[in-house]
């Protein structure tokens, strides 16, 4: 009964998406009101069927209906209710079903928000979105069917992957990731529509940028949440390992970040239209490549789903999407044209270009490192791993260069700069640069790259802060407003600009924190007997004993470790080894004592309650929590930039023609 209902809903979603896609394209080619109405209806229908299919699956998971193949695969009566709910995205088929839901929501919202605007573009966009929707519905209807029928349902199931139950971050990471990944479908559809129409005007670059930014915020959070999860759960003490699946989420982030910047040049100067469209297309294609990497079993990774038959299907879709994009680009990219000319000389314009090239270079570097082992495997039958050294060697200089550009770019004026302007723009921030580097040197930083990161970080931080508050200072000076009033006014009028600089400020902190945490940490591995004490840096650790903890879904042995720093007690940490219901192998969970300056990180290698011994990996990781904090700042900045300027503010604007774009340019 439930499996049949689920399968029917998926078939209906497939039907709605396929029909809607055809209607969308047809209406785009021959605009007519009836066609557009139907395209919209079918888009909503697709979203509704996907939502219902997801509800059906949740119902089956919560009622432990093991006649549904997916429930029999991941469900269990032994797990808490919240685990049953999030089991929806814990395994392959369910995650694609959830993907369908996210996609439905995005398509419905985008269709609804823009239904009355951009009449020539929107039918094409809906056509492209629903074509992508049709593919994922097809995946669910066939190769990744979650609603298979189990003729003789078992009484209980194995439960989801224990790693999912091990930490709450695993509950929120996938929804963020999917919201970031799937959300890229919307700008993809809009960019394709711009190509199909043959025009990319200022009116259309805005929705494109806004949807791109929405997904970018989610993706940024997802990448860092993934790193945070790895840090808190996997127990090796790091947060990023250049694993193929991590790279899969990083690649579209890089191109999306580049596109967000080049979109600004489209808006301001009418240049780089084709380039921006290429970046948006590449972003979506990289999300599909990422999906393939995570779900085909071709890449060896700690994060990937188990091997599955859906790899070939996704590959066919990837190939089709790649070739469609390529042919569309080749045919139409010239028709987008350009309304202006890019400045040459030293200017903010050129720094935008440099930034874009650096991001694209970064994308190629990571892509090459990810795919290279496969090339070697295919050509010579050798297995090899490119591994961290390559990625570190390539990404450190690129990251430092980006930091540099992030400081110099905003410091420079638009258009051509005079020598005098250059001097007054570039000299003052050297104070910030010197200050931060000096602090680093004083605290013992000797690594050249870390010092460079601090140097450029200080420069960029000063530029960012002064640019962020420039409109406030201007208002205070020219209009005589008080600080609070000027801040509020500048805020409401130049939101995008302010938000963008908040993102930059966050990014500076993230890069500095990564540089410091990866070069300034210390670690040791040690075997301790009960009552024994060890020290690492300023920390003393005493292994008090091992204890058994029973919970409904897991049994754990945990080590009670009392920690103190410079003789002052910091409490007790409990790194543990847990064995889950229905799972054989125990899973270690590290314990972390976090402070603003550094983390003390304990991970169990082995523990013996009877003999009273524990093998511990002890790490001191400086500044790690600033990565999480600064990412939140970045996301917040993105949100600030996304929220449209308040209506009251636009109404109060002196002239209706003075749009937010003009305000942004007022620097």
């Amino acid at each position, binding site marked *: 009964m439930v499996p049949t209902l689920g399968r029917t809903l998926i078939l209906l979603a497939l039907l709605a998406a396929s029909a809607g896609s055809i209607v969308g394209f047809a209406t*785009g*080619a021959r*605009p007519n009101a009836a066609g557009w109405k139907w395209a919209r209806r079918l888009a909503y229908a697709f979203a509704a069927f996907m939502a219902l299919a997801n509800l059906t699956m949740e119902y089956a998971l919560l009622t432990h209906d093991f006649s549904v193949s997916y429930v029999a695969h991941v469900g269990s009566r032994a797990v808490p209710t919240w685990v049953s709910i999030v089991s929806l995205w814990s395994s392959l088929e369910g995650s694609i079903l959830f993907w369908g839901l996210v996609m439905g929501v995005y398509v419905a919202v985008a269709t609804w928000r823009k239904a009355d605007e951009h*009449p*020539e573009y929107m039918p094409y966009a809906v056509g492209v979105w629903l074509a992508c929707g049709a593919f994922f519905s097809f995946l669910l209807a066939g190769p990744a069917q979650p609603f298979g029928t189990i003729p003789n349902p078992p009484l209980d199931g194995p439960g989801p992957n224990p790693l999912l139950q091990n930490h709450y971050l695993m509950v929120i990471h996938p929804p963020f990731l999917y919201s970031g990944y799937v959300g890229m479908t919307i700008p993809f559809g809009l960019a394709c529509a711009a190509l199909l*129409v*043959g*025009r990319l005007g200022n009116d259309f670059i805005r929705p494109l940028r806004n949807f791109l930014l929405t997904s970018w915020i989610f993706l940024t959070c997802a990448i860092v949440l993934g790193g945070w999860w790895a840090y808190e759960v996997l127990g090796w003490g790091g947060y990023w390992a250049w694993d193929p699946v991590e790279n899969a989420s990083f690649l579209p982030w890089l191109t999306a970040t580049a596109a967000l910047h080049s979109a600004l040049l489209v808006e301001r100067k009418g240049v780089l239209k*084709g380039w921006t469209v*290429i970046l948006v297309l590449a972003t979506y294609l990289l999300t599909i*490549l990422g999906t*393939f990497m995570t779900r*085909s*079993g*071709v*890449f*060896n990774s700690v994060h990937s789903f188990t*091997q599955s038959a859906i*790899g*070939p299907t996704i*590959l066919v879709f*990837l*190939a089709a999407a*790649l*070739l469609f994009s*390529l*042919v569309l*680009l*080749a*045919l*139409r*990219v*010239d*028709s987008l044209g350009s309304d202006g000319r890019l400045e040459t000389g030293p200017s903010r314009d050129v720094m935008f270009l440099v930034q874009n090239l650096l991001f694209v270079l970064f994308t190629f570097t990571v892509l090459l490192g990810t*795919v290279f082992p*496969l*090339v070697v*495997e*295919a050509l010579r*039958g050798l*297995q090899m791993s490119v591994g961290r050294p390559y990625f570190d060697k390539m990404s450190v200089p690129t990251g430092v260069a980006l930091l540099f550009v992030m400081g110099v770019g905003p410091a420079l004026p638009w258009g051509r700069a005079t020598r005098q302007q250059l001097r007054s723009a570039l000299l003052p921030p050297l104070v910030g640069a010197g200050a931060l580097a000096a602090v680093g040197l004083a605290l013992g930083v000797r690594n050249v790259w870390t010092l460079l990161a601090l140097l450029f970080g200080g420069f960029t931080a000063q530029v960012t802060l002064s640019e962020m508050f420039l409109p406030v200072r201007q208002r205070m000076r020219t209009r005589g407003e008080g600080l609070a009033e000027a801040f509020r006014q500048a805020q409401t009028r130049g939101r995008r600009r302010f938000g963008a600089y908040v993102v930059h400020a966050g990014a500076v902190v993230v890069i500095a924190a990564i540089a410091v945490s990866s070069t300034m940490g210390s670690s040791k591995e040690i075997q301790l007997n009960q009552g024994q004490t060890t020290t690492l840096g300023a920390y003393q650790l005493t292994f008090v004993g091992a204890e058994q903890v029973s919970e409904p879904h897991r049994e754990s042995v945990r080590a009670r470790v009392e920690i103190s720093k410079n003789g002052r007690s910091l409490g007790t940490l409990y790194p543990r080894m847990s064995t889950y219901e229905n799972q*054989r*192998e125990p899973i270690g969970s590290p314990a972390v004592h976090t402070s603003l300056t550094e983390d003390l990180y304990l991970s169990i*290698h*082995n523990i*013996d309650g009877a003999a009273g011994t524990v093998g511990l990996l002890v790490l001191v990781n400086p500044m790690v929590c600033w990565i999480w904090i600064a990412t939140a700042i970045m996301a917040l900045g993105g949100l600030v930039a996304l929220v449209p300027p308040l209506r009251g503010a636009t109404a109060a604007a002196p002239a209706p023609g003075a749009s937010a774009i003009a305000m942004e340019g007022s620097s």
Partner: protein
Amino acid sequence: MATSSGAVTATAPRVNRKVLLAGLAIVLPLLAVLVANLGRDPHTVRSPLVGRPAPPFRLVPVGGGTPISLESLHGKPVVINFWATWCVPCFQEHGALVASARFLRDVQFLGIVYEDEEGKTDEFLRERGTSYPSLMDKDGRTAISYGVFGVPETFFIDPEGRIVEKYVGPLDRGTILSLVAQARGGGR
């Protein structure tokens, strides 16, 4: 609306060769590599030893006792697991191997200790239990003859003594079952 799309179709589509060629230069090799690797299990490594007779050895079990040689196991499928106590994935797969060895009575499971001390190994096995012998490979000669380059690596050997499959990384029970089935059948 009609005029603008009409205007576009009116201009004959000119193909931007540069974009097309540059795109193809990136896209086609990428697709070719992905297609070539499709269906490959990243855990099974194509070893030149697969299909060949397994290199012989004669090694003493952990904690002493009579040496065990591969020759003496002729006629039975054999699973040889190279492992070490310092290797986290080995720790993960240990339970699956012990349970499978108990369950698959007609298959001989053997552990070969890779670059580790006998004391630590003995302690590990006593703590976590085992159901099959682990052998000390003191000078690492057996590991070299099997071309082991990291642990865990597991070899599945048919009753004739030929290597049927080599698996890199931690095993689970399902994989053990299917690879043992291959070893029983003498490979593909």
